[in-house]
């Protein structure tokens, strides 16, 4: 029984620019938005778009991600035929290889894809926050009778040179691809989401693998090769919310944007496009008498006795009396003790912030850094963590970390 389209989700990235957050887990497993992880977005998009078969390509620190995905049930991806499969690199009779690049990761799993005999394969990336209907993308791909389509976003011209750009004609047919060019000819940035006809993808993956000089990368190798052969390539315009959360500041910003769905365009309250996740199973959150919560998102298991302003608290966060939290992203299980101040920062899971400690600071003209505290770290009483700091080791009582 053939599937029309299956998804391959690239989730092997280390996310080295998230450093303190990705020491022990792959970037797609980074918590986001109060009760989600980044990977919940592409997975939920798949299910909501009618895709029931997803291969997740993992490589870097896959433990947390593997456990989180489990049998795929939270996303309704526990299926008899299809469903979600975690695909790490594996040993073969003729030796074994790490995934050398994005294209090679798919190449090494050609036999997985063949099991479903799909007509189309959609390649997704596990490090973006985006609500997108892939079935609409597929419709476009079919209408254009394309062999390859890429989802693109219009970006401001002055920023265009930071992106991989697609130059397209009036009919959206791609004529040229520019990777981070000095002189952009287009402002259509690739979102790294592709639909291929499977026979075409397979052919180019095999040719790419045979080329010893290739970096085995979609952007650097596969797409230029398709262009060279004058394949039918189209650019699909996407104009919803899309954010690459590859850096601390973009991750922080995306979190803050969900506090303002009316303006930012990322609305998690959409009954028709739910984002699924594995639930904490904790009891409802509590705000005690004397606690203050303003303009924030709070989830199950939180206990708030202090002040929380314009922040996102994940499951089971405790905020003791007199603690002040502002413009902060505080991940699951973290305890913020009495009198501590936590501002304009990201605090990872299971952190303890001691009494009267100070983490981060509200931005000033000279300094607008987002302080980051890695998972499991203890910040001692009266300690100070400066706005530029990225802390992944315990900070003793009274010490300062800048």
């Amino acid at each position, binding site marked *: 029984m053939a599937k029309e389209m299956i998804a391959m989700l690239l989730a092997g990235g280390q996310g080295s620019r998230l450093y303190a957050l990705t020491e022990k887990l792959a970037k797609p497993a980074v918590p986001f*938005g*109060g*009760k989600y992880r980044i990977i919940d977005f592409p997975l939920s998009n798949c299910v909501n778009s009618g895709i029931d078969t997803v291969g997740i390509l993992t490589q870097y620190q896959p433990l947390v991600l593997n456990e989180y995905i489990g049998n795929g*049930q*939270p996303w309704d991806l526990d299926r008899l035929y299809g469903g979600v499969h975690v695909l790490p690199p594996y040993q073969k009779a003729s030796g074994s290889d790490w995934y050398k690049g994005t294209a090679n990761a798919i190449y090494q799993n050609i036999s997985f894809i063949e099991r479903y005999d799909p007509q189309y394969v959609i390649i997704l990336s596990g490090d973006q926050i985006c609500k997108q209907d892939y079935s609409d993308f597929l419709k476009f791909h079919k209408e254009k009778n394309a062999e390859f389509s890429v989802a693109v976003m219009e970006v401001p011209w002055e920023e265009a040179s930071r992106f991989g750009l697609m130059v397209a004609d009036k009919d959206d047919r791609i004529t040229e691809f520019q990777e981070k060019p000095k002189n952009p000819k287009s402002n259509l940035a690739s979102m790294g989401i592709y639909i291929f006809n499977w026979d075409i993808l397979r052919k180019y993956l095999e040719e790419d693998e045979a080329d010893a000089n290739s970096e085995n990368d979609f952007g650097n190798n596969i797409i230029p090769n398709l262009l060279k052969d004058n394949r039918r390539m189209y650019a699909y315009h996407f104009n919803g919310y899309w954010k690459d959360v590859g850096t601390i500041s973009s991750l922080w910003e995306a979190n803050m944007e969900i*506090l303002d769905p009316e303006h930012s365009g990322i609305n*998690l*309250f959409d009954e028709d496009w*739910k*984002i*699924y*996740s594995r*639930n904490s*199973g*904790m*009891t*409802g*959150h*509590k*705000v*005690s*008498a*004397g*606690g203050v*919560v*303003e*303009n*924030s*998102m*709070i*989830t*199950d298991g939180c*206990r708030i006795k202090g002040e929380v302003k314009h922040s*996102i*608290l994940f499951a089971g966060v405790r905020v003791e009396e007199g603690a002040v939290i502002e413009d902060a992203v505080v991940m699951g299980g973290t305890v913020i003790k009495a009198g501590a101040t936590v501002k304009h920062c990201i605090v990872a899971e299971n952190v303890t912030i001691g009494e009267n400690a100070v983490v981060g600071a509200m931005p000033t003209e000279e300094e607008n850094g987002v302080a980051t505290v890695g998972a499991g770290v203890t910040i001692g009483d009266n300690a100070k963590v400066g706005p530029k700091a990225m802390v992944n080791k315990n900070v003793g009582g009274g010490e300062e970390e800048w």
Partner: protein
Amino acid sequence: MVRSNTSALGIIFPNSYDALVPDLVNVRLMASIPFASRYRLIDFILSSMTHCDINNISVMVNNNYHSLMDHLDSGREWDLVRKNGGLHIFPPFMEKSAKPYVGRVGALSNILDFLRDEKEKYVVITDTNIVVNFDFDDMIRAHIESGADVTIAYNEQELPESFLKSQANDLGYYYTFGLEKGRIRKIYVNAKDAGVQNVSMNMFVVERELLIDMINTAFVRGQEYFERDVLLPQLDKLNVQAYKYEGYIARICDMKSYFDENMKLLDDYNLDALFSGGPIYTKIRDDNPTRYIEGAKVQNVMVADGCVIEGEVENSILFRGVRVAKGAKVRNCILMQDTVVEAGANVEYLVMDKNVTITAGKDMKGTSTYPVYIGKFQVV
């Protein structure tokens, strides 16, 4: 594999004491009454059972059970999708003269063939109107150590007001015990004694084979109620032991106690006491976190996911998906799933069932001794 000597299967009676809370069970049954911001009463018993490796659970639904079927589904949330055991739902077997269950004897006689086929040595039987994080392992251990034929759990408390007030026996039967060194020598039915009593929690441990024998005999004699008709007359012959429960307990006996027991959980001490055992599982709704918008002001509240709060909320329990609009004031209320309090409305001492809407600007108040209940889907 079923552990041979200590394993137990569970039997739950979800309709017991429905008559005590007629409003709340209008569209459901006792087991599916919402509690503590995101749970249903049965979640506490089911989760307690699965934490004690009781993975073969039968729910003897009698009437109004659609909401419970919807809630339980396949039983996955409680890890009860099992090849061996798992969750079974047993409605009355509808023959030509369809009759609902009356007492436990009739209900159990309906599943005797099932009970005969099972492997577990013991059976644990409970209702759902008692909210506990219960250690069944400990009770089964006590049952085995004492060599009892039947062990019944009880706690020491005064009889609930609604029991004392009821004149007739039409609200069902409740039991208190006269004890002698832990053995139950007297079972009092619907007693009216003042002061602290040994009040039955209607939780039993009994060997499966013995239960089958007892039910067989009782059914032939036309008996209906297990405690009143089967145990009470045989207290001399049977070794019926009492198991004293001293943990946190919330009994739902009427609307007032339903209201009070919810509100009690606003005290961290009580909340921690109830939830300090294993986690309590419930149906997942995949709501987003609760959003507090500019202007929201909350004090002493327990709130589930999926709410949007723009108004003022104080001393209240909010279930999933509740909306409190700008300028609205909510005090001392229980707002169940997806209720809406529109702009400028002012509500106090209400129990709002699912999907109730209080339209803009309305004032509505109950009192602390008489919280006002508003039925499902009502628009005020």
